[in-house]
C-alpha cells in the first residue's frame, strides 16, 4: 500500500472532470441561470463534485 495505485484512482478523477464538462456544456446551452453565469463557470471548474451538483440542482432554472 506504499505507493498509490493510479489505475484505480484515475477513473475517479476522470468522472469528476466529466461531471464538470457536462455542467459547462449545459451552461453554454442554457439561456439563463440562477445567479451570474461566470460565477457558475468558476464553481464548476473549481468546486469539485459538490460544485457540479450545486450547479445542476440550484443553478439550472429548468431542473
Amino acid at each position: 500500500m506504499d505507493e498509490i495505485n493510479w489505475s484505480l484512482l484515475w477513473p475517479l478523477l476522470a468522472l469528476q472532470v466529466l461531471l464538470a464538462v457536462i455542467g459547462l456544456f449545459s451552461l453554454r446551452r442554457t439561456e439563463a441561470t440562477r445567479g451570474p453565469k461566470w460565477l457558475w463557470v468558476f464553481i464548476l471548474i473549481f468546486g469539485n463534485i459538490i460544485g457540479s451538483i450545486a450547479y445542476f440542482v440550484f443553478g439550472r432554472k429548468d431542473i
Partner: protein
Amino acid sequence: MRGMWIFSQKEMLELVRSYKLAWIPVVFIILGIMQPLTTYYMPEILKASGNVPPALLESYEMPGAAATMAQALGQYGTMGLLVLVLAGMNSLSGERYSGTAELVLVRPVSMISIVFAKWVAQLILLAVCLGFGAAVAAYYTGQLIGDLSWMLVIFATGIYGLWLLCIQSLTLLFSAFLRGPVAAFMALLSAAALSLLNSFLPNWLEWTPASLPAYSAQLLTEGSKSMGSALTGSLVSAGLLIILCIIGASLITGRKKLID
C-alpha cells in the same frame, strides 16, 4: 393506455434534455468508487491527517468486502437520496409553474396516466443510477478488499433501491401540492423520521419500508439464510406505500386548483 405511453416518452425526453440522465448516474458512480477507496486507504488518510495516535492506527482493521459494499449502498441512502429527491422535487409542481399543466389538463387525459408516467421516469432514473453505481462499487470492492457474491449484491441493491423508490414516490406525492423545495424538504423529513422511528423501535417496526436498508446490509453480511418473514412484510408495505403515493398524487393533481 396510449396517453400513458406518450407521457412516458415525454418524461424520458425531459430526463435527457435536463441532463438528469447524465449527471445523476455519474454522481452515483463517483460515490460508488469513493467508498471502497476511502475504506482501503483509511490508514493512509489517518496518517496524513497527522494527529492520530499510532496505537489507533495499529488497531485499524479493514472491514470485510460485504461490510464495505453495505457502506457503499449506505452512501446512496444519504447523498444519493438527496440528489434523487432534489432532482424529482419539481416533477409535478414544475408543470404548474411552467404552464404546461394548463395545456395538458384541458384535454381529456386521466391524471393517473400523467402521474404514473412521471413515476416510471423516476424508476428508470433510479435503476440506471443504482445499476451502474452498485456495479462499480462492487467491482472496486472486489479489486481492493475481497470477493463478493454477485447474486447477493444484486439482491441487496434491489432491496436498497426499493427504499429509495419509496422516498421518490413520496417526493412525487408532495410535489403534487407543494412547491418544489418544500416537497423535497418534506420527503427528506419523512425519510428521516421513518428511519429514526425504525431505529428506536426496531422490533415493532421491522415490517416498515424503513427497515429495507438494514435488511439489505444484513443480506450482504450474513447471507440469505438469515432473512425472515419481516423482509416480506417490508417488501409488501413498501409496495403499498408506493401505490398509495401514486394514487394520492393523481387525486390531488386532478382536484387542486392551479396556482397562478
